[in-house]
């Protein structure tokens, strides 16, 4: 708009008009400046500090650190904490797979058969979020505990042996992760399935596809971007999670999140913690990069 105006009045723009034009030109920068500065100082700069801490080499004698671009620190910490990385990978991947299997049918049902109750069912999917994450996990500790009512009942009915226990094992951690992150899986799946044009499915049936074929060759391919988005949105937070492991997993099966948290809050080993955080961030970015490469960078934002 203002470009057309200045073209109409070359050189003859009034002072008032000029100021308005300037204001309009500056508007996007002024509007995004406060948020931009906030994110720069409290999000980007801390990540850069973390990366530079990783790449520095410190002399143990003087405690002084100099930038040596020591990229070797990253494979070094990965090797050092290999078991914890494997545990995180195993637990997060299991929980994500369980969540995908659990939530696909319900997302499908809400999207195709929800009718005017769709929003009500979506709130039901989100119901765990109305209780604090910590309290949810504490209640699961309570439910799964050795003298809790579930195991008490199972033992009473002789369905499990008397020394059977869940709490303090990897299964309890996976169960907790699966419960806590289920809505993160179900919502993107719902968005993807909701978008499917029912006429495409009708066309498949008209062309004599049976239900299996219609599902495998129409519904599933159309929801691939949603499945991948659901995978990332569940796997990334689950991989870095340490609350479920600390509350439900006991002292065994340490995940990488626990190591990072302990390095910063217990051992004050900022260099070690920073290196692990950089690796964790790199793993997440790798997943997102793969998504963008395979399915296009625009689509992932639609699922946030």
């Amino acid at each position, binding site marked *: 708009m203002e470009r057309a105006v200045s073209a109409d009045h070359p050189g003859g723009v009034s002072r008032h008009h000029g100021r308005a034009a300037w204001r309009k030109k500056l508007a996007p920068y002024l509007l995004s400046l406060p948020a931009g500065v906030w994110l720069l100082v*409290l999000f980007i700069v801390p990540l850069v*500090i973390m990366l530079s801490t990783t790449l520095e080499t410190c002399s143990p004698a003087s405690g002084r650190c100099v930038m040596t671009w020591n990229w070797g620190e990253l494979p070094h910490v990965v090797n050092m904490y290999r078991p914890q990385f494997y545990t995180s990978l195993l637990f997060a991947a299991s929980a994500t797979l369980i969540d995908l299997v659990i939530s696909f049918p319900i997302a*499908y049902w809400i999207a195709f*058969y929800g009718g005017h109750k769709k929003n009500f069912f979506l709130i039901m999917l989100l119901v765990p*979020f109305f209780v604090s994450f910590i309290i949810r996990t504490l209640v699961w500790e*309570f439910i799964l505990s050795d003298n809790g009512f579930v195991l008490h009942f199972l033992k009473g009915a002789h369905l499990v042996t008397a020394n059977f226990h869940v709490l303090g094992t990897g299964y309890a951690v996976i169960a907790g992760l699966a419960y806590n992150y289920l809505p993160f899986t179900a919502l993107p799946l719902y968005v993807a399935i909701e978008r499917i044009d029912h006429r495409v499915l009708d066309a498949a049936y008209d062309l004599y596809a049976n*239900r299996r074929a219609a599902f495998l060759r129409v519904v599933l391919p159309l929801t691939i971007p949603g499945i991948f988005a659901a995978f990332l949105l569940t796997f*990334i937070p689950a991989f870095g999670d340490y609350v479920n492991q600390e509350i439900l997993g006991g002292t065994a099966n340490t995940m990488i999140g626990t190591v990072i948290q302990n390095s910063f809050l217990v051992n004050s080993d900022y260099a070690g913690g920073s290196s692990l955080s950089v690796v964790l961030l790199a793993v*997440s970015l790798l997943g997102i990069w793969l998504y963008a490469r395979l399915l296009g960078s625009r689509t992932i934002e639609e699922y*946030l």
Partner: protein
Amino acid sequence: MSVDTTPASATGRPARVAHRRRVGKFVLPTYSWLVIAYLVFPIIVMIVYSFNRVVAGLQLVSFTWNGFTTQWYQQWSNVPGLTSAFWLSIRLGIVSTIIATILGTFLAIALVRYRGRAFRGKVVMEQVLFLNIAAPEIVMGASLLALFVAMNVSRGFLTLVVSHVMFSIAYVAVTVRARLSGFDRSLEEAAYDLGANPVTTFRLVTLPLIMPGVMAGALMAFALSIDDFVTSNFVSGTSAPFPVWVYGASRVGTPPQVFVFGTVIFAVGIVLALTSLGLSRKKA
């Protein structure tokens, strides 16, 4: 349903349709309600055990059912640390929500309205928002702690507020942007034609129209703030907000009042959500 009993017709299509209906009408709903029951189950346990009597000794939640009592609701404020942690969380939620909503809304307006040469750096800004949402929270929390330590900032309410605003801005911006994209700009032009300046136009025309999106963003920010554990645990220092306090206490033993707070917060949240659902349905 009568279709089910008739033999398949020559084309076989009605039988297939009937089969689809059966899956849609019986198998999937049953399964879905089971999933919902699974999601609700721990919440029911929390509510029920908030009414559990404690027999003797320390006043901590116990695994056995000792009888019904409303004692913990009457003595909801008897655990001083818990009550002050709760009010700290409320204050933190309100302050960080206000700041994040204002910054996020302005950012969303810039992102929706300007592109190309009018807004250089838009793509970078969008990528930063995306990275902010996608980055593992533990990495952000740990890096904030590293920043505060490096700059010698003592941790407390202020560091909590700036951190919570940081992780809320992107969610607010994304929510408001979704709402803004269907915005009819001719309404603003009409206001300009009638002699309104940009500030007046924003206050009287733009803001009322995008208010539902702004409120949705604000609710999102508040919910994120009040439930945040990971980042808060890194940057709170000695002033622990509700989730951090509860986590710390639970390692020794959970006072029953924790379940009371959990139940009340849940009730308020679910009533608000269902009310807004009812209101939006009435409008439609």
